[in-house]
């Protein structure tokens, strides 16, 4: 990078070429008032407060739009500049009628002590009532320029304060800097906000109601507002006294956030800027959805079932009972479900407890339901089953293929990178049966019938092969098994593919050419690919596609599974799986097992345990009679949910460790109150394999304890105090890194800032952003010959619709957390069956009608939403709403390799439920 040197106010400042004078000054710690500029936005030079004097120039350029040059001499604070700034600021205040008592009142310092109570008035007319008082950039600019009055008459604009779900919009305080408008457009790609220009100078920002607009409530506009015009209601009455940097507890992006705390409450959440996956951005769940942490419904004491009822009990009683029952069910009669919501340390302890103390490998977690097929397929093809590249690299891709992922709803912050790539000229291919938000920016949208991904991807491969677009060198040097794969495509006809998938062959050709020629090409995928009875084959097909075009092992390429839970990557890494120890070391491997046996000082079982769905079948058959579930809600999340609930009622002894009395916890014999992410220390590993530090923000409610303490206590009480005594989670991480090669170089000291991407084998290793750079983990990448297997259950005369399931932006999984947040419930508080308007007409169903959806396994009732987002013949439902348990409908048919159930395709029928 070229470095240049300039002097600002006599100080020598070094900066990179291409930086503006304002950026250079800020880096050097020199303040220049700037109300329209923001680091995330391209400069517009509109407020004119950042004017500077440059030696040799006659005019006064705005620092935000002037490039720093080598040898430039800049002065920022001459009396002349200050005089001009005062005039500008005066005009700005006069034209926008911003209240001025907060700026000029000569007694404003005296009333500081009254601030807290005065601010509790419901209206902001300036002065200390303003929710932004003390943090306002306008106040800072006034102070800097020493402006002490304005000579023009102003009048209070008297705009009504607009109340949105999480924040207030008070345009009486707006100075029309347009940061919010530009952030909504440039950073978030939504463009919901825009100026509402008024003939009588009463300008404000529209639309009047965000609830009725396309607003996604990400809060980015609130974060950039320099005044009090946009403020979250949570911080209206109290200012944060303390900030803690931690990681968002929702999806797998792993957004780093600064949480502001005041008197033991979370009052502010901001995305952390800098070297983080999110660089300051968050989505509605992370930004405004943390209220669940302080919900009154949190579990505060252990509960024990006595006479059929769950009653409060002490820790000692609960743990004694558990130890007694666990001791009687050692071996394969015991099963443990660990949690992708818990930290790495806790998952490590859970599988250690299971293997060492309970002497069984029956440990699994919800990754079985999301990316088991990814792990199986990518491990087979490359030798390592994780995202091959980093989130940041997406922005630099030449082409991004998004298949089976509704990225803007499920991984909103990654969708921002895709939108950024589009702005930088990348081609976007969306393959999805549903119309997702990214379809509007897609160059090609392949709308395949659900469950026909294998033929679609093979079709793409066929075109690439036929048109000679393959990367021969890559295939020759880095891969094996290409010849049989090539031969297997010989008989494939694109017309046939078109018939099966419902996609025009010409579109498949377009997509294939773009993917092969506009590299580097990234593949982004998610549940739409994995949750099929042929999920493993879907991913093997994607691996073929990437290998034949050489899109692996280089920046902005690769195959990128987006993980759904904050720590599902970590839970897999920590060996909360029935067949592997931490770091994917197989339990059948004698060498690996010996390492753990030596360290844990006991012989360990070498037979792979049962997977999640197999555990429930084993309970039915009486083979498993004792179960310990940590932070999961299988009654709502697992397919054929009625069957799961039956099994859990039948199991001899069920312990559920939760933060709320979930639908699963309600069936337990003992419920243990655990802590949320905000009440403990530890680490999460995000979807790009980045191990990040989670820090304690609040004290746990009541008697709740961190999961790692609970598991350790059980381990100690069951006779292994030597193996389950840790003073704090960093000690657990020390043990993990000593036993897990890919985590070998990870310690709390090293990840204090920024985190590290595994593999990170040694304490001086910088971490690995791109996998398979010089060779695949398994040596050579292997091509697989694939054939189309239809989904296990296809629509027929009796059940004519395909039901596909998924998530929506404002809720998360089974809703245990997000349904406790009133603002999120305001955005959506009930299940909606999304069906195509044409189907609606055929069935006589109108928008908002109650509809009964039934499959061979069960039925639920929900309101209909007619939308073009669903293609004809396809219905869509979420699984967020316990009162509409969609998973009683879904099919538990398993992928034969990965044992992942087919949540994405089942046959249903629809009928109006109200009968008239």
């Amino acid at each position, binding site marked *: 990078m070229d470095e240049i040197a300039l002097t600002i106010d006599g100080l020598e400042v070094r900066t990179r070429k291409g930086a503006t004078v304002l950026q250079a000054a800020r880096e050097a710690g020199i303040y220049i008032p700037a109300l329209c500029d923001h680091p995330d936005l391209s400069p517009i030079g509109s407020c004119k407060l950042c004017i500077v004097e440059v030696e040799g120039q006659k005019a006064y350029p705005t620092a935000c739009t002037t490039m720093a040059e080598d040898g430039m001499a800049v002065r920022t604070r001459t009396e002349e500049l200050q005089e001009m700034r005062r005039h500008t600021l005066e005009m700005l205040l006069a034209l926008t009628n911003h209240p001025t008592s907060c700026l000029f009142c000569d007694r404003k310092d005296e009333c500081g002590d009254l601030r807290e109570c005065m601010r509790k008035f419901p209206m902001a007319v300036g002065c200390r009532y303003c929710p932004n008082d003390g943090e306002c950039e306008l106040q800072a600019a006034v102070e800097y320029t020493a402006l002490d009055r304005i000579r023009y008459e102003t009048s209070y604009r008297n705009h009504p304060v607009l109340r949105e779900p999480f924040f207030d919009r008070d345009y009486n305080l707006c100075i029309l800097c347009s940061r919010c408008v530009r952030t909504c*457009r440039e950073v978030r790609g939504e*463009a919901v906000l*825009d100026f509402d220009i008024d003939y009588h100078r009463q300008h404000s920002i529209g*639309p009047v109601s965000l609830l009725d607009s396309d607003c996604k409530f990400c809060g980015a506009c609130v974060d950039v507002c320099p005044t009090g015009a946009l403020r979250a209601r949570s911080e209206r009455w109290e200012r944060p006294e303390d900030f803690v940097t931690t990681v968002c507890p929702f999806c797998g992006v792993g957004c780093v956030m600064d949480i502001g705390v005041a008197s033991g409450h979370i009052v502010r959440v901001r995305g952390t800027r800098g070297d983080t996956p999110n660089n300051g951005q968050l989505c509605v769940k992370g930004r405004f959805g943390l209220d669940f942490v302080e919900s009154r419904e949190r579990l505060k004491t252990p509960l024990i079932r006595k006479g059929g009822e769950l009653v409060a009990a002490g820790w000692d009683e609960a743990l004694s009972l558990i130890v007694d029952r666990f001791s009687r069910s050692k071996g394969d009669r015991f099963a443990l479900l660990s949690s992708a919501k818990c930290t790495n340390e806790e998952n490590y302890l859970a599988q250690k407890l299971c293997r060492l103390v309970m002497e069984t490998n029956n440990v699994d977690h919800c990754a079985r339901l999301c990316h088991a097929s990814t792990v199986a397929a990518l491990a087979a093809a490359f030798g390592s089953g994780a995202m091959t590249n980093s989130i940041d690299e997406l922005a630099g891709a030449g082409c991004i293929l998004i298949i089976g992922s509704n990225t803007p709803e499920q991984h909103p912050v990654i969708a921002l990178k895709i939108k950024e790539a589009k702005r930088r000229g990348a081609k976007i291919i969306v393959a999805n049966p549903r119309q997702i938000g990214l379809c*509007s920016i897609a160059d090609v949208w392949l709308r395949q019938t659900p469950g026909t991904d294998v033929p679609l991807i093979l079709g793409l491969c066929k075109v690439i092969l036929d048109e000679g677009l393959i990367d021969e060198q890559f295939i020759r040097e880095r891969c094996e098994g290409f010849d049989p794969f090539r031969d297997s495509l010989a008989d494939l006809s694109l017309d046939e593919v078109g018939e099966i998938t419902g996609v025009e062959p010409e579109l498949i050709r377009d997509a294939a050419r773009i993917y092969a020629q506009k590299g580097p090409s990234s593949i982004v995928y998610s549940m739409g690919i994995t949750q099929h009875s042929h999920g493993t084959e879907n991913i093997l097909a994607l691996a073929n596609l990437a290998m034949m075009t050489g899109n692996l092992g280089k920046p902005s390429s690769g195959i990128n599974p987006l993980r759904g839970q904050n720590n599902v990557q970590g839970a897999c890494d920590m060996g909360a799986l029935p067949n592997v120890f931490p770091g994917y070391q197989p339990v059948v491997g004698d060498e690996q097992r010996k390492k753990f046996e030596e360290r844990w000082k006991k012989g360990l079982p070498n037979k792979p345990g049962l997977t999640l769905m197999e555990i429930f079948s084993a309970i039915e058959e009486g083979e498993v009679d004792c179960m310990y579930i940590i932070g999961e809600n299988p009654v709502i999340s697992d397919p054929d949910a009625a069957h799961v609930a039956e099994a859990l009622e039948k199991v001899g002894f069920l312990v559920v460790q939760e933060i709320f009395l979930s639908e699963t916890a309600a069936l337990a014999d003992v419920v243990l109150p655990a802590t949320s992410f905000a009440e403990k220390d530890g680490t999460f590993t995000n979807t790009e394999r980045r191990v990040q530090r989670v820090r304690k923000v609040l004290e746990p409610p009541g008697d709740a304890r961190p999961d790692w303490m609970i598991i350790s206590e059980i381990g100690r009480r069951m006779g292994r105090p030597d193996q389950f005594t840790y003073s704090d989670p960093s000690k657990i991480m020390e043990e993990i890194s000593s036993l897990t090669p890919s985590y070998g170089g990870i310690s709390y000291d090293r990840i204090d800032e920024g985190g590290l991407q595994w593999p990170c084998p040694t304490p001086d290793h910088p971490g690995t952003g791109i996998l398979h750079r010089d060779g695949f983990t398994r040596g050579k990448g292997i091509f697989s010959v694939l054939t189309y297997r239809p989904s296990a259950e296809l629509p027929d005369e009796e059940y004519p619709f395909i039901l596909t399931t998924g998530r929506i932006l404002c809720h998360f999984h089974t809703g245990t957390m997000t349904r406790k947040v009133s603002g999120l419930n305001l955005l959506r508080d009930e299940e909606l069956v999304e069906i195509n308007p044409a189907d609606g007409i055929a069935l006589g169903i109108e928008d908002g009608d109650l509809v009964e959806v039934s499959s061979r396994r069960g039925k639920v009732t929900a309101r209909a939403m007619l939308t073009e987002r669903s293609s004809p013949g396809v219905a869509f439902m979420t699984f967020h709403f316990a009162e509409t348990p969609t998973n009683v409908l879904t099919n538990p048919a398993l992928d034969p390799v990965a044992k992942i159930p087919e949540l994405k395709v089942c046959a249903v029928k629809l009928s109006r439920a109200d009968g008239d």
Partner: protein
Amino acid sequence: MDAVDLVKVDEIIERYRGQEGFLIQLLLDLQGELNWIPRDLIDYLSERSGVPRSQIYRIASFYKAINLSPVGRHMIHVCMGTACQVRGAQKVLDYTASKLSIKPEETTPDQAFTLRKVNCLGCCSMGPVMTVDGEYHGGVTLEAAEKALKDLR
């Protein structure tokens, strides 16, 4: 919007492909074809041009020349600028309104006429001024206004 319209709309959008700052002229051209800018058209235009809907709406709602609700086949503007007002523009406006049985800014139920006030038409020396379908009438008397309407009926 029906299919016939879309062909014309596409043709007009094509004229401005690759240009910058085209939005106002494009909206005026589209209006020339359709008389007004329906909501669906804004959605379609946004999809085709990549300009956000909010921005198109901001421009369209700012300029009085762009109609966001249906207008009559004939458009009548009465100038209410200072010069015209002192020469009796209010009388001309009231008279026209009563003849059409609508208030200013409204459209007749048969979709034949829309009556609008404007602030200045830029030809103060001719006042009072009214325009009928873009044609300027200077020194308008009540009789002249009535005749202009009759000619159109």
